[in-house]
Structures are given as C-alpha cells and as structure tokens.
C-alpha cells in the first residue's frame, strides 16, 4: 500500500519536474531566481564552487542550500560543477565532521533507527547460536549412549586397561586371542594335540602313583603355556602395526620356546625324584599362575570382549550381555533380575561343573566369558554364582 502511494507521488513529482523543467530552462536562461528567495541575488562563482566541492562550514552550507533549492540558475551550475569535479561523498563528510568522528560514529550506531533493526537481528543470531550448541550437545550425548552399547560387543583393548591400542591393532589381536582361548578350551575339554601328547608322555614315563598329580600339573601348565602363547601370539601382531624395538619380540619367542619345552624336560631327564621336586615347586607357582590366568583369560572367548569389559568396569556400573543386564556391586556382576532371597549355586570357573554348564548353555558361556570376575546370573529360573 505504502509502496503504491509512493509510486503515485513519484509519478506526480516526475510530471511536475517535467513541467517545471520547461519553465526552469526559460527562467535559468533569463537568470531569474525564485521570487520567494530571501537571498534574491544569485550565488557568486566562489560560493557555487565552494558548495559544489563541499568545503563550506555547515551553517553557511545551510544558507546556500535554501537558496539552491529555489534558484534554478544556481542549482544548475552547482550540479554541473559537482559532476565536473567528480565530487565524492567522502570529501563532504570529511569536511563536515573533522573532529569527534569516532564519538559521532558510535552515536550513530546506537540511534533508534539502527537499533530497530539491529536488536532483532542480534537476538536472532544469539538464538541460532544457542540452538546450534544445544543441537551439538544433543548429538554428542546420543553418540555416547550408542557407543556405550557398542562397547559391550565391539570395543576392545588387547593389553588390558593400562595400554591403549589403536583400532587396527584390535583387528590384528582378535584372531590371536581367539586362537589362544580356543586352544585353552580345546585343551581343557577334549585334551587334543600337544596337551594330549604331553599327558600321555607323562603317563608313560611316570609311575601310576604320580599319574593323578601329573594330570593336574599338566593341566595347570597347559593353561600357563596357553596364556603365555596367547600373549606371545598377540605381541608380534601388535608390533607389526606399531613396531617397538625388535628385542622384546625375540625375548617372547625365546620364552615361548622355553615354555613349550618345559613339560618335556623332566621326561627327558628321566629322573623321577627330581621331576617330583620340580613339579611340586612348579605346581605351587602354577597354582598361583592359574588363579591369575582364570581371572585374566576366562572372560575372553569372544576375543576382545573380556578385555574390553575390564576396561569398562571402571566406567559403567551396568552392562548388558546376551540380553541380560548386570549391575556392578562390590566387584561382582549381579544380574538385575537376581533376588538375594533366591538360592544360589556356586560354580568355579574351569571346574567340571562349570564346563558342563557352559557347554550346555552357550548363552551362559557368553555371559561368563564377557564378564570377568565374579558373576551372579539368573539362568532358567536358577541363580548361579560364577567365580
């Protein structure tokens, strides 16, 4: 509406200008000014030029502006001079405001006409910034939540909580650990390959009285050797990605060989008494080692899950494994569905009962393998405490 009104006035002004222009040419040629002009005399060339160049003081300029607005002749000359001299706005503005420019500039910024647009624009920008920050935080928190879920199955750390391994190393370490744990399971359950052979050799070389004891030793040793093997197997693979000094690699290899030879040494010596003493000492050491091995290796059949779980213990108080939710209470993973009043069956990791149970219940095995330490789990209505 306002635009249309302005258009009407614009058209009227142009028409008036056209008519006035025709009259102005005549009056300009005749050298006549406006009859209403208080300064009836025309401006002299110096005044005209000073106005056109914008070098007059403001008060004087106002006087001449009033004359020029009504005097066609002087206005035409001023316009002609301004165009000829290539007058720029800067020239005039510099002349108008020689001092206090900065103050006037800031004052002009905070005028109502400027603030009318600036304040809504500024508030819009601030709102947009707040919205952006909030949106980013929201996204980050959703990522954290998703990552928390993913850690139960994917996240891994080959060397426990103290060492941090990059992602490529995880993929390298995974088969090695799996191999180790698989070997251990195979060794404990079916007694195949090297362990079987060792056991048979021991049985052959040693007397019947020593048989049962040797079996226990062989088992514990096999576990220790497997553990060592799994460590050795992991280490070189990691070294491929991030090559540390070559020396440790050699040491591990030597240890591996030495450990592999260890069970065979007594048999080759053919000295029962010596072997008995050695075995006794070793059995003491191995008992401690096996306990450590249980704690360290038991929860890692799905390769990195157990290791990762150790790391996550400190981070989260609850975990979900195989669809079951566990809560960490005094270093014990307790099934959230477990009721303390229910009777609990205690099972030790590595025992026959344990093997039988996890053999029959793969889901339970997954839980036992992914959660290290003591676990209280409710499975098919029964509560088990796995240590």
């Amino acid at each position, binding site marked *: 509406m306002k635009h249309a009104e302005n258009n009407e006035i614009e058209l009227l002004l142009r028409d008036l200008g056209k008519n006035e222009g025709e009259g102005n040419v005549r009056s300009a040629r*005749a050298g006549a000014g406006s009859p209403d002009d208080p300064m009836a005399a025309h401006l002299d060339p110096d005044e005209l030029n000073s106005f056109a160049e914008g070098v007059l003081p403001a008060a004087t300029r106002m006087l001449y502006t009033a004359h020029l607005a009504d005097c066609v002749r002087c206005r035409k000359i001023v316009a002609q001079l301004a165009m000829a001299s290539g007058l720029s706005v800067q020239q*005039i503005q510099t002349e108008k405001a020689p001092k206090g420019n900065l103050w006037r500039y800031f004052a002009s910024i905070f005028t109502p006409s400027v603030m009318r647009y600036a304040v809504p624009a500024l508030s819009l920008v601030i709102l947009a910034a707040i919205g952006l920050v909030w949106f980013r935080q929201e996204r980050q928190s959703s990522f954290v939540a998703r990552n928390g879920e993913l850690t139960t199955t994917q996240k891994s750390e080959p060397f426990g909580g103290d060492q941090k391994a990059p992602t490529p190393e995880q993929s390298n370490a995974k088969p090695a650990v799996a191999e180790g744990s698989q070997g251990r399971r195979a060794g404990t359950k079916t007694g195949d390959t090297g362990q079987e052979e060792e056991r048979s050799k021991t049985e052959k070389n040693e007397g019947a009285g020593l048989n049962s004891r040797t079996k226990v030793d062989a088992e514990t040793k096999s576990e220790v050797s497997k553990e060592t093997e799994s460590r050795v197997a992991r280490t070189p693979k990691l070294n491929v990605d991030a090559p540390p000094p070559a020396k440790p690699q050699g040491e591990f290899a030597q240890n591996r060989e030495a450990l592999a030879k260890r069970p065979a040494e007594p048999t080759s010596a053919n000295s029962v008494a010596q072997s008995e003493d050695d075995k006794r000492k070793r059995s003491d050491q191995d008992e401690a080692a096996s306990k450590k091995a249980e704690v360290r290796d038991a929860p890692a059949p799905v390769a990195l899950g157990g290791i990762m779980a150790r790391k996550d213990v400190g981070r989260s108080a609850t975990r979900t494994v195989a669809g079951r939710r566990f809560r960490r209470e005094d270093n014990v993973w307790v099934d959230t569905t477990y009721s303390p009043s229910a009777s609990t069956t205690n099972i030790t990791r590595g025992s026959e009962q344990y093997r039988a149970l996890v053999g029959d219940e793969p889901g339970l095995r997954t839980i036992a393998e992914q959660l290290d330490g003591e676990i209280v789990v409710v499975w098919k209505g029964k509560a088990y405490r796995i240590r």
Partner: protein
Amino acid sequence: MKLSESEIEKLILEGATRLLARAGDRRSLTAQSLIFRIRTVVDKYLLRANENALAEELSAFIDGLQVDDLCLIISCELGNQSAWSELVERFSPTVRSAARSASSNEDAAEDLAQSIWAELFGLRTRADGKPAGKLAYYSGRGSLAGWLRAVVAQLAVDVHRKQSRLVQTEEDTDLDRLAQDATSSGKHAGLSNASPNPEQSVSNKAAGSEVQDALARSIKELSPEDRLLVKLYYFDDLRLREAGALLGVHEATASRRLTRIHTELRKGVGTILVEQRGWTEAETERAFAEVAITLQSDVEAMFETEVAGGKD
C-alpha cells in the same frame, strides 16, 4: 563567546603565517598580503552564518584554505607576469573544457574561453588604478580549477541570457506551436491527456491540476535539504548518487531520504486537499489513483512513441 575584533585579527595573522609556511611557492608574498583576502573569506563563509565561532574553528577554517592557488591569484592581482603565465598555462585546458560544456558549438566555446581570460584580467580599472578583474573574488576556499569552471558557467548563462532576449519572442512562438501539436496529437500531454468521456476528461484534468498544485505547495513546505534533493533528482535529472554527493550523503541515504519525502509529500497533499479544498479522504485517494493511472499511461505512450521513432 563571540571573538573580539582584535582576537580575530590576531588569529588571521597567525593563520596567514601558517599558510605561507606550508605553501609550495610563496611567490615572495608576506603574511600581510594575505590578511585582507583571508579576512574577507572568514567574514563571508564563517562569521556571517556563525558569529560566535570559536578561535579553534576560525583557525581550522583558515588552515583549510587552498594556499597555493591563493598565492597564485594574489600574485596575478599584484601584476606578477610569471604568475599570469603560469595561471594561463595551467588552467587553459580547464577553461576550454568548461566553455565547451556550456556552449553549443566549438566557435562559441572558443569565444567564451577568450572572454573568460579578459574577465579575469579585468579590462576596466578600479579607483586605485588596478584592473577590476574577477580574480578578486576567488576566496581560496574551493579549488581554483572549480572556481574557474563556475566563472565560465556563470558567464555562459549571462551570454545566453543576452542572446535569448533577442530571439525570445520567436522561440516562445515555436514552443507554443510544439505544445499545441503535442496536445492535439494526444501523444504527450501529461495530465491534459484526454479520456474517451469529455466530462470525465474535464473532471480528471481539474482534479489532476488540484493535486499538482497541492504537491507544489507541499514541496515548498519541505526542509531546504529535502527540497533541494527533490529538485535535483526530479527537476534537474541528476542521478541519486550525484544528488546525494552534492548534499554530502551516500546514495543509499539519499534513497532512504527520498522515500521518507514521498511519504511526507503524500500526507501533505492529502492534508491540503482535505482541509483547504474540502475533499473527502475517499476523493483524495481516488484522485491519486486516477492521476497515477493517467501519468503511467502517458509514460508508456511516450515510451512506445520513442521506440517507434527509433525504428523509423
């Protein structure tokens, strides 16, 4: 507080000394030889509009003078021949260019340029025996080149005025004939454009005339700056950038100012028509709309005529 006469004289003397100190070529002038000229320009441009100007303002004003141009002109006035030669040599192209712009042909431009130098030198003599040339009117506030252009433009108007008096009667007759032709052909007649209905035509014409009259009166009510902007833009056909530059504002500022002026004028015209002519609001609105339609159609008709003329 108003400066005393002695204070003003002291400030002017100090200012003249400062000016000479920074002059590229002093031309053997002393501060005393500048004082009269400086006093004139201070009175004319500073104290006349602001009697209470401060000492700092006065000093700054003097420091803003074009000292080299001023020294050259004063030397010429004092009869220094080398200064004259320099003036003619340096500013002949400027004078010739200005004369060409103000004249219709090359001969007229050459005549005008020659007469400028005669005017500057002064063929007549003053009471003190010195030539009464126009050089005495250069204040040194603006550039000498600009002042010369202004002198040329003013002289051209005077020359044209003298010539036009001789041919005015004949020219007026021609203009009247042209106006009659245009009206009868109906191609370019502004508000006098006839509509199919003669009664309505007369009514529209009367209404349009009243609106235009109210508009002219409203323009007079505007502030001098706004009035000058309107006239420079609509009457003198300057571009908005040029009009703004002349007023010392940016093109965008001039545009905003013009929009505001439109609103003010619209309101002013409405007030005049309602309060002084007894129109109703509805009549005012209708008259605006009809006048706008008529003018718009005139503009379009004129444009079509020009296009057709161009093709022919």
